[in-house]
């Protein structure tokens, strides 16, 4: 005979089920509702915990920059030992990279938004931006996974994956609604320049890049610099007009001279580049009008900081006689170079320009003492 599971006094016999009446059904529904309400309290407690954790984490986020107003604009510095990397200006916003993070800062309000965080130990490229889009490359820590070209649409606040890129790739670039990037080709794996219209989704290829060291786009013009098969030969800058397919190949310095290309920019339909050659005592910035093939030197100084351009305005930085660095601009349509800002300490690494805003990236004496400063054009 089976042993009873419980000892002691026998439990009372269960009450016979009450006949289902309207009152009984209402009571049953009431019990279910109350039970739902009580279970909702569990959800509420959990949600409060989750929100608190998120807020706590955000308050201690390492990516959040220190933004301070200056008399002419903003000064943006990183914290927690993050080093400020490449940056871009556009649409009254500043996109920048610090370690694995890609951020967008509104200089009007000083508020920043995290656009991307490369996976653990990964890295992000310098971003490029137009009035509508920011593009950048996130590379994984190991070569076993592809790097990813990301697009962020500023007005919609929407981030989308544009392309998975194999091998080493340069920072992608964007102008208007057109993005270009470098990717290893199929089969032989020779790198190629690819592009896409970010609104229509139309894709195109500009052919082999030769391993671009820098890639830029402005309007319908795409330019990149790459080495030649002969390592002794100077780099070549290739410019392609997406509108009609025309191509230009420009040697940034004469063959037979030792030299280096410091940077390139597109000012309207003028290619601008900075070079250092063994023949010249100082670095030079040159401008080449693609429609009226003619080269002219627009700046010459020791330790020139590579130029940035927007429309017909070219901006660069050079050491000043007083010991600091001078940020200078010139309009290619005419006029003399004019001073934009004076940077008393540290060394200027790069300059940016978009519409009426100029920015410069300063590296101080200490390793992580880097900041970006913006100013409105005079």
């Amino acid at each position, binding site marked *: 005979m089976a042993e009873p599971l419980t*000892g002691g006094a026998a439990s009372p016999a269960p009450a016979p089920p009450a006949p289902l009446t309207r009152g009984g059904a209402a009571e049953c529904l009431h019990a279910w509702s109350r*039970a739902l309400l009580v*279970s909702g309290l*569990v*959800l509420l407690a959990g*949600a409060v915990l*989750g*929100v608190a954790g998120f807020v706590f984490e955000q308050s201690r986020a390492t990516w959040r920059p220190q933004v301070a107003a200056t008399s002419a604009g903003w000064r943006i510095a990183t914290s927690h030992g993050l080093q400020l990397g490449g940056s871009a200006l556009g649409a009254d916003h500043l996109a920048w990279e610090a370690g694995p993070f890609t951020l967008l800062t509104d200089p009007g309000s000083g508020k920043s938004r995290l656009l991307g965080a490369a996976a653990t130990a990964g890295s992000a490229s310098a971003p490029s931006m137009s009035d509508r889009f920011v593009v950048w490359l996130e590379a994984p820590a190991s070569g076993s996974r592809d790097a990813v070209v990301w697009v962020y649409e500023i007005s919609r606040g929407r981030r989308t994956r544009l392309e998975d890129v194999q091998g080493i790739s340069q920072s992608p670039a964007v102008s208007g609604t057109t993005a270009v990037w470098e990717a290893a080709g199929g089969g032989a794996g020779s790198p190629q320049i690819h592009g896409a219209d970010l609104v229509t989704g139309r894709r195109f290829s500009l052919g082999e890049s030769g391993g671009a060291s820098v890639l830029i786009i402005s309007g319908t013009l795409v330019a990149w610099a790459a080495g030649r098969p002969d390592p002794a030969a100077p780099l070549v800058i290739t410019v392609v007009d997406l509108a009609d397919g025309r191509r230009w190949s420009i040697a940034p310095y004469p063959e037979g001279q030792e030299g280096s290309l410091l940077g390139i920019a597109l000012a309207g339909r003028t290619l601008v580049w900075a070079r250092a050659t063994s023949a010249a005592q100082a670095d030079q910035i040159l401008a080449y009008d693609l429609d009226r093939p003619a080269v002219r030197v627009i700046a010459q100084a020791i330790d020139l900081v590579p130029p940035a351009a927007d429309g017909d305005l070219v901006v660069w930085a050079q050491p000043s006689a007083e010991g600091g660095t001078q940020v200078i601009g010139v309009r290619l349509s005419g006029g003399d170079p004019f001073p934009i800002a004076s940077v008393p300490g540290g060394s200027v690494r790069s300059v940016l320009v978009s519409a009426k805003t100029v920015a410069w990236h300063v590296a101080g004496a200490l390793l992580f003492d880097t900041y970006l400063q913006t100013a409105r054009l005079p």
Partner: protein
Amino acid sequence: MASWTTRRSPRLGHFGQLVLLWVLVELWILNIADLLLTRYSLWLGFAKESNGVMDYFFRSGTVPTVAFKIGIVTVGALLLWRLRHYRTALFAAALLTGVFTAAVAYQALWVLSF
């Protein structure tokens, strides 16, 4: 005199069982939300699955991941429902659901903040 079992885990009344049922339903739905948000965060590239078992399934593919994640929580929920007469079952379910809610709320805010 109360039995050994009853003293170890007090009995749950009818109302408590109703609460347990709702909590288990919520747990099951939250599990799906957690799966979707994790999958989306991994795809976005800013998250890394720190649970080794789930990381293995995420690498194996979508179908094994969905089958494992839904399957294990369904089995767990059914087990807790089987033990619905005990107050401990309600406590365990509430704890699990609370933790899942916190994780889902945190992930949802992360995704929204991007």
